[in-house]
């Protein structure tokens, strides 16, 4: 393994780019905060805080999907991901960072009583409303704050424990016995994370953070839909970083075969996302009950029509037709293109999920959205790059590393 480059050095260009993106983002953030965030107009405030909310929630969940990927492949006794596992690990170090931004934004919205974002904060309205009264055990500030704290805190801690144990594979070779023990400890830690992930991302957190914007509306499909969205974007993000590192001459042990499997995840979960999209839409369309169709009314027939169906084309038709072929999933250029497209598509999906409810009459997509997006992309590039540089890129003594080296699709 003499020729393997274990240590990532951050290229100057990457630093410049990420700082430039952050700079643009900060300018947009400050202008937005001054003109909209602290404005007296509720629409302007909803526009600013909503934009910040969907961006920060999107990026937190996408980066958290990386840790979910590691944990699930660990639980499945997967070996193929070991040659590039430091990439999703590095991406998952973003969870505490983006998580704290999410925490600050959401807690600010709840504490300052912005009932034009979360209608259930309006205590007078809730008292007169039997539906909201029935939900008040779940939708109340106290539960919201506790559950949000727990969710972000435990994702960070359990993810950190997963990364810590991975560091042990850098230290010394393992014999059969210590290797088996190491895998068992990995499995236990991964199980803790996965269970907590199911209780949060898989169910309660999307209801609490995003679905409760439409306080009366409910869909049990919503959380799975959000999870599918964030997981497919997470896989795309991993694909992008793997390809970037390959282009820079790192990750010698990762081959087209690994890329092929990442591509399969992107393809399969795009279809899974569509399955949930359609299941949610079709049942509501068929039953045609006003309290349910209220969510889709302005999305399917109102100003969000274009974005709503563009969303379906980007996130379903394109991955289905383009990623179906084996040769497409093994082509670095095509996977890069699709990964960017999928990330953009699901970012747009989160946009219409949040802003479609906050600004029903007008589509707000504009400079603020792309400014805040560039802030988050810049932060992601900067910190993931740093995190990659702080550890060896190869889990040298992981018992399953050989399985990954000889991986063949």
């Amino acid at each position: 393994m003499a020729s393997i480059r274990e240590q990532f050095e951050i290229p100057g260009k990457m630093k410049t780019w990420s700082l430039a993106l952050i700079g643009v983002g900060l300018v947009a953030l400050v202008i937005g905060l001054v003109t909209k965030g602290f404005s007296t107009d509720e629409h302007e405030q909803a526009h600013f805080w909503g934009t910040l909310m969907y961006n920060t929630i999107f990026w937190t969940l996408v980066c958290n999907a990386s840790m979910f990927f590691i944990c699930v492949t660990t639980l499945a006794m997967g070996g193929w991901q070991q040659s590039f596992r430091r990439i999703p690990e590095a991406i998952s170090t973003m969870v505490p960072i983006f998580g704290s931004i999410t925490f600050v934004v959401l807690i600010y919205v709840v504490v300052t009583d912005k009932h034009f974002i979360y209608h259930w904060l309006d205590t007078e309205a809730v008292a007169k409303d039997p539906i909201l009264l029935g939900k008040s055990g779940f939708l109340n500030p106290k539960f919201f704050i506790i559950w949000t704290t727990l969710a972000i805190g435990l994702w960070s801690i359990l993810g950190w424990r997963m990364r810590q144990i991975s560091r042990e594979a850098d230290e010394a070779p393992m014999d059969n016995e210590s290797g088996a023990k190491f895998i068992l400890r990995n499995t236990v830690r991964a199980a803790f994370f996965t269970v907590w992930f199911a209780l949060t991302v898989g169910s309660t957190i999307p209801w609490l953070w995003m679905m409760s914007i439409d306080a009366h509306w409910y869909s049990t499909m919503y959380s799975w839909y959000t999870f599918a969205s964030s997981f497919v974007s997470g896989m795309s993000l991993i694909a992008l970083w793997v390809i970037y590192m390959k282009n820079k001459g790192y990750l010698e042990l990762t081959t087209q075969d690994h890329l092929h499997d990442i591509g399969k995840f992107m393809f399969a979960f795009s279809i899974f996302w569509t399955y949930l999209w359609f299941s949610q839409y079709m049942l509501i369309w068929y039953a045609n009950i006003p309290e349910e169709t209220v969510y889709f009314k302005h999305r399917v027939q109102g100003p969000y029509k274009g974005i709503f169906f563009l969303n379906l084309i980007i996130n379903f038709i394109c991955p289905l037709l383009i990623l179906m072929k084996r040769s497409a999933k093994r082509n670095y250029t095509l996977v890069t293109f699709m990964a960017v497209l999928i990330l953009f598509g699901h970012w747009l999906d989160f946009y219409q999920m949040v802003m479609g409810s906050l600004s029903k009459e007008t589509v707000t997509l504009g400079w603020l959205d792309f400014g805040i997006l560039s802030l988050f992309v810049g932060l992601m590039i900067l910190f993931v790059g740093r995190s990659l540089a702080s550890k060896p890129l190869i889990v040298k003594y992981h018992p399953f590393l050989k399985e990954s080296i000889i991986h063949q699709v």
Partner: protein
Amino acid sequence: MAKKKFVVGCFDDEAVLFPAVKKVRSAGYKIHDVYTPFAVHGLDHAMGLRETSLHTAGFIYGITGTSTALGCISWILAKDWPLNFGGKPHFALPAWIPITFELTVLFAAVGMVLTFCYLCQIAPFVKKHHFHARATDDLFVMVIECTEKTNVDDLKSFLSNNGAIETDVQIAEAGWWLGRYDQDELPFENKQTVAA
């Protein structure tokens, strides 16, 4: 189909089989097929087989299913016999998607199974020659097709030198044919033994 002459080499180890396959190919012999007890990773590559076209066939079956479903339902429910179901429009696309999906899967699945059987030459009541009964148990059986120019003895010793534990010459039907087992030699009655 015509009967052909084959030289059969049996190997008991994957690690011996792979270099042997490479050497046989580079020596210019034509490998008819390699029969293995389980799927061996990378063997198709070593044998120089081209990518299967089964998935292309599957895609075509799939879109056939999609268009059959959409064409059929839309013609029936929107043109030939429009009915009012709960005030929904006659062209009620979302309601048809599940059926379209099912028919796509059905066409693709059934079509691919049949195509697979055709490509592998397996079907009920259809017979194919077994070169060695133990190919289904614990032997890797490499079958080489002979031409007029092939020196059988040379080839047999070439195989033995490359690790074959048993070699054999057979004149057999290359493809599949319709027939019943009781009219032919039973595969397990072939007195094939392996020199331990």
